[in-house]
């Protein structure tokens, strides 16, 4: 690790300098978000008839994205909280990244049920006519609670860095105003640090059960419905493991991007990637086990509608997606993550990209084939998303990347104070600021 002032300079540099490449990236992302916004305006004007949704497959791509984004978000904070509580010494560079992914993905993911409603004003019906027996209301409560917790957690961990940054006049008025509001009179005294750490540890401890329960509630939204492919007792842990799996993979991809574009090679080292790769491998095996258990149980029972659904997945309309997910998203990444020759940064990032893609497919395969399976002896429904759903999906993915990119321009993407604490002693904020200014 670099010496303390140099370390801070490397982390603060992206806040002070904006490259043309970064601006170009932002422009492209804003363009994609704009296309998504146009798609949504089209949907608002013409109703859900412009989508591929119908009376049978009424959830489609929107709810698949909802589950996917919420999964990513859970992985982020769970990682951060678990690493912090277990006092894992290599966590320093990862936690801020994970927490920012959580907040961004949770906010954007929570928008999808509103998109799926068609009439956004009807969201209010949840409050006016909501029934506590409904898993939809539980889900709203769980996600709201989790989002609030993630924000508080992120705020607490930002305070020491905000204190370091509040004296850097080169960062401009708005950001300085924000840093001063966040840090207030933080000086980094032992008493302050102890008090803040108590709050952070408390939040980390509470966020783990909140995250697990919140994702379990999301799983129950499906599991408590008497439909093929959904009515399953393992859906809770299945979803939680899937969430951690996709969350870690996303962290790896974002880490690799910042390592490459912000030159953070000394923070995101091969060691970090390999540690995460080990976690990914464990989760991969666990998810494969759950998948096998789920499908084998259903196949062995062989009830007529279950057979219809399984046939569509295994060698029917959804077979290409299903086998792409199993082979390309679970088996191949497992090999990449465990074979020593491919346990390199490119190998691990490739595996992570495959995993994220597979987890998105998995969410689609959870939602769509079940809804398309006839509940009465009628014909199958074929769901084909239209450009509106694809543009909104692309726009949301772009919005998440844009959020993380812009966040990295407001706060160091690596927590300076935690990295410093791992490296040695905590220094008073004012001296650090002076050194940074001199540098």
């Amino acid at each position: 690790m670099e010496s303390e002032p140099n370390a801070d300079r490397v982390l603060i540099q992206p806040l002070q300098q904006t490259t043309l490449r970064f601006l170009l990236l932002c422009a492209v992302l804003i363009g994609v978000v704009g296309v998504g916004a146009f798609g949504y305006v089209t949907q608002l004007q013409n109703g859900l008839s412009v989508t591929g949704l119908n009376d049978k497959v009424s959830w489609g791509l929107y709810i698949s994205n909802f589950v996917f984004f919420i999964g990513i978000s859970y992985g982020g904070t769970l990682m951060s909280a678990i690493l912090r509580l277990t006092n894992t010494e290599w966590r320093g560079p990862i936690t801020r990244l994970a927490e920012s992914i959580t907040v961004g993905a949770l906010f954007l993911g929570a928008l999808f049920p509103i998109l799926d409603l068609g009439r956004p004003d009807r969201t209010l019906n949840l409050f006016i006519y909501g029934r506590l027996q409904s898993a939809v209301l539980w889900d709203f409560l769980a996600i709201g609670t989790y989002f609030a917790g993630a924000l508080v957690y992120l705020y607490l961990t930002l305070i020491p860095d905000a204190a370091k940054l509040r004296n850097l006049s080169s960062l401009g008025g708005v950001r300085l105003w924000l840093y001063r509001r966040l840090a207030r009179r933080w000086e980094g005294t032992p008493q302050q640090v102890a008090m803040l750490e108590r709050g952070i540890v408390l939040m980390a401890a509470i966020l783990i059960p909140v995250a697990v329960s919140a994702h379990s509630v999301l799983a129950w939204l499906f599991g408590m419905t008497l439909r093929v492919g959904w009515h399953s007792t393992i859906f809770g842990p299945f979803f939680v493991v899937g969430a951690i799996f996709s969350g870690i993979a996303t962290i790896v991809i974002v880490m690799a991007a910042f390592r490459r574009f912000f030159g953070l090679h000394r923070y995101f080292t091969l060691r970090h990637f390999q540690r995460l790769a080990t976690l990914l491998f464990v989760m991969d095996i666990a998810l494969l086990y759950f998948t096998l258990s789920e499908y084998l149980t259903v196949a062995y029972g062989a009830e007529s509608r279950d057979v219809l659904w399984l046939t569509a997945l295994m060698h029917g309309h959804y077979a290409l997606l299903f086998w792409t997910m199993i082979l390309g998203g679970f088996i191949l990444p497992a090999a990449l993550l465990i074979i020593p020759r491919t346990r390199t940064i490119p190998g691990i990032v490739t595996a992570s990209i495959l995993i994220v893609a597979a987890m998105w497919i998995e969410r689609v395969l959870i939602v769509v084939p079940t809804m398309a399976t006839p509940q009465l002896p009628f014909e199958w429904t074929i769901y084909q998303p239209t450009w509106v759903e694809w543009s909104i999906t692309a726009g949301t993915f772009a919005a998440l990347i844009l959020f993380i990119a812009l966040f990295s321009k407001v706060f160091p993407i690596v927590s300076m104070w935690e990295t410093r604490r791992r490296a040695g002693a905590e220094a008073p904020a004012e001296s650090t600021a002076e050194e940074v200014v001199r540098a």
Partner: protein
Amino acid sequence: MRSVFFAAALAFILLIAPVIPWRPLYSSAADTGLAVGCNSTEGVVSEGRILPGEYSESYFDETTKLLAYFSCSDTDGRTLQMAIVSPWEGWVGLLLQASETWNGDMNVVRVSYERGIGPRSYDGYFESASNTERMDVDWGGMTDVYDLTAESNDGVTVYEFAVPLTSDDIFDSHMTGDGFLYFQLAYSGVDVDFKSEASGTSPLNMIQISTQYFPKVWSELQFLPLEGSHERTGTEVLFLLRNDRGFSVPNAMVHVFMKAAFGFAELGVVMTNSQGVARAVLEPRGTGTYLVGAAFEGGQGLLASVVWMTLVLEDTGRALPIVDSGHIALSLVFLGVAGVWLVYAYALVLAHLATARSRGDLRPTRQQELRKWR
């Protein structure tokens, strides 16, 4: 010669095959044909109760769950006598072909019953050309609904009334000789206001008014005493179907349904066994009062019959406590969620205290920063 024969056979098959009715043919005009016998005897007594032998034809409509009985009297002008058994709180109605030749115009009769007020009727006329419906008196006719009586018990009302078929009023139905009349049944779910729209209407059906007919005989569907207790896991209900002589009717289909907040939940069709007993299992999702109905649609020379029962399902205390005692589960959830939010609040208080302690504003002034640079 043989080739000519085969060619002819092939041509015959190709020409004839497309027009052969491979599937059964159905009439698209009316769903049911019912024969109503007209005679000069006074068989029907209008008192809000249907007695064996009063009516010669019946029709149970699966859409509206209304059971209608028909009879015809030639005494003092031809009159169609009717009874309707209704589970609805609002009005029920009969739409009867108006002119002797079908042109779409309907004689509209609506009846309702309110406790304390008694039965009321509405005599209207629907003109298909203008798509307009008004009361007969508004068209220039008169009100011709006779002998209206009603009895209501446990949410089920029986109406009896008569409408003339040889009236001087051109806004009534007319069938001076034997022939066919189209009819429909309709209901309004909750509103007794006759101006309210129908909530449900049966398909268009047909009755044949004739002096030559084979009268159908009485049938009666009964609930048998329930076996077992009213449990939330399911309640077994038994039905007995008997004919006019009290003998059980085997191998007959009985439709079972349950009144929900909006309309009816179909519980399926059950068959009577050799003792005329059919069995159905109800699986309501909670405790409460349910109006359960069963209908025999007629057949085997029997009139249709319907039976209604108010089923009160009470908590037997055998259900899973956490599901049953909603308030306990909700309290636990509330405590859990409130606890989480309290931890958030405590963490924020800690952050507030940590950032509030100060030895003074440490922010260097612009001049101090510049001095350091120099």
